[in-house]
C-alpha cells in the first residue's frame, strides 16, 4: 500500500489538512470527494459544514442527565418533562431547533420522555436504523446501531438487558419503545434509594447514557457506562468523544 505524505494539499481552506497517518482509507477518500464536489457545486458551503460540525461536537448525554436530575427534584418540572419534552429541554439549555432553526434533518422536533415506575421499565431501540435523541443525548453508542441489538431487543428484551447486567422481576412490565418514525424518546428512570437529600449535580452523575436508553438502572456509585472500546485509526480530536471513554 502506498504511504501518505502531508505535502500537496495547499487548498485546504474548506477541509481538514492531510492526516499524519500511514494510509488513507477508501472511505476517507470518498468522503473528501463528496464533500468537495458538494461545495464546488454549491449544494452547501464550507461554513455550513463547519457550523454543523460545531453543533455535533457540542452535544452529549450530560444534558439528558440534567433533565432527569431536575425532574427528580422538582415535581413541576417533572410534569413539564412528561407533557412537553421540547419545552423541558429548552429549560435546561437544549433547543431542538438548533443548529438550523428548524431542527436537524435526522432528529426532528417530536421529543418524548418515557417515565419508568417501580412496575414499568422502558428500553429504547430503533429496529430500522438507529434513530436517537441526539440533541439531548449526543451521538448514539456503537452497540445501539448494530443489527444485533436491533434484531434482538424487541424479541428477547430480558436476555439482552441481562447481558447489560440488568435483570428485572417478571412482574415488572418491560416496555420496548421502537422509535421507527419521527418521535424521539428518552427514559426517565426511577430515582434510586440511597439518594435522599442529594443535589441535582450528584443525581445527574449517576444518570448515565445507558440509564436514559433503558439498558441500565441508576444507582449510587455507578457513574459510568463500561463497555469495550474499539479505537479509531484517526479519531476526531474533540471533547464530544468523552462520552465514549
Amino acid at each position: 500500500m502506498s504511504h501518505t505524505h502531508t505535502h500537496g494539499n495547499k487548498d485546504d481552506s474548506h477541509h481538514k489538512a492531510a492526516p499524519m497517518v500511514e494510509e488513507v482509507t477508501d472511505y476517507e477518500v470518498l468522503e473528501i470527494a463528496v464533500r468537495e464536489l458538494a461545495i464546488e457545486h454549491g449544494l452547501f458551503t464550507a461554513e455550513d459544514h463547519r457550523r454543523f460540525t460545531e453543533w455535533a461536537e457540542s452535544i452529549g448525554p450530560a444534558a439528558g442527565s440534567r433533565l432527569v436530575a431536575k425532574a427528580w427534584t422538582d415535581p413541576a418540572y417533572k410534569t413539564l418533562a412528561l407533557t412537553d419534552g421540547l419545552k423541558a429541554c429548552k429549560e435546561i439549555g437544549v433547543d431542538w431547533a438548533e443548529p438550523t432553526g428548524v431542527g436537524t434533518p435526522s432528529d426532528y422536533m417530536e421529543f418524548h420522555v418515557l417515565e419508568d415506575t417501580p412496575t414499568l421499565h422502558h428500553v429504547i431501540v430503533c429496529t430500522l436504523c438507529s434513530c436517537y435523541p441526539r440533541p439531548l443525548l449526543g451521538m448514539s453508542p456503537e452497540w445501539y446501531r448494530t443489527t444485533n441489538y436491533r434484531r434482538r431487543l424487541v424479541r428477547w428484551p430480558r436476555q439482552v438487558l441481562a447481558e447489560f447486567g440488568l435483570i428485572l422481576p417478571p412482574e415488572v412490565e418491560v416496555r420496548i419503545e421502537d422509535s421507527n418514525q419521527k418521535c424521539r424518546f428518552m427514559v426517565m428512570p426511577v430515582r434510586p434509594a440511597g439518594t435522599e437529600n442529594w443535589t441535582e449535580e450528584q443525581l445527574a452523575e449517576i444518570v448515565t447514557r445507558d440509564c436514559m436508553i433503558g439498558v441500565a438502572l441508576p444507582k449510587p456509585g455507578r457513574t459510568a457506562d463500561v463497555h469495550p472500546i474499539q479505537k479509531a485509526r484517526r479519531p476526531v480530536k474533540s471533547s464530544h468523544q468523552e462520552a465514549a471513554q
Partner: protein
Amino acid sequence: MKKSNTSPEKGTLFKVGDKVCVRDMPYMFYTRSQLYTRGVVGTIAALTYKDLIPEEEAFNFDGRVEQYYIVRFRQKDLWPGYPFDNDTLQTECPHRWLEPATN
C-alpha cells in the same frame, strides 16, 4: 419539509384506547412498518403528529399527510411463545397502516 394535505385519511381518526390491527399491505422498495407488527392487534397509546408517509417522503413525493399514532402491543401477541405476560412494545404507525380491530 411539511407538504399540504392532498388527501385526508381513509376512515375516521383513531382515539387513544382504540383497538387497531396493523394491515398486512403489499410492500416493496421501502416501508417503515415493521414485518413483526403485521396482522397484530394493538391499542392506540397516543396520537403524535401529522406528516408525510415514509413511502412517499423517502421519494420526495409531494403526497399524503397523515395522522401518526403510537401503538402498544403485548409482547405475547407479537412473538410465539413469549414467556412474560406483562411485557409490551410500542411503536409508531401512520394511519394508512392501521384498521379497526374486529375483536
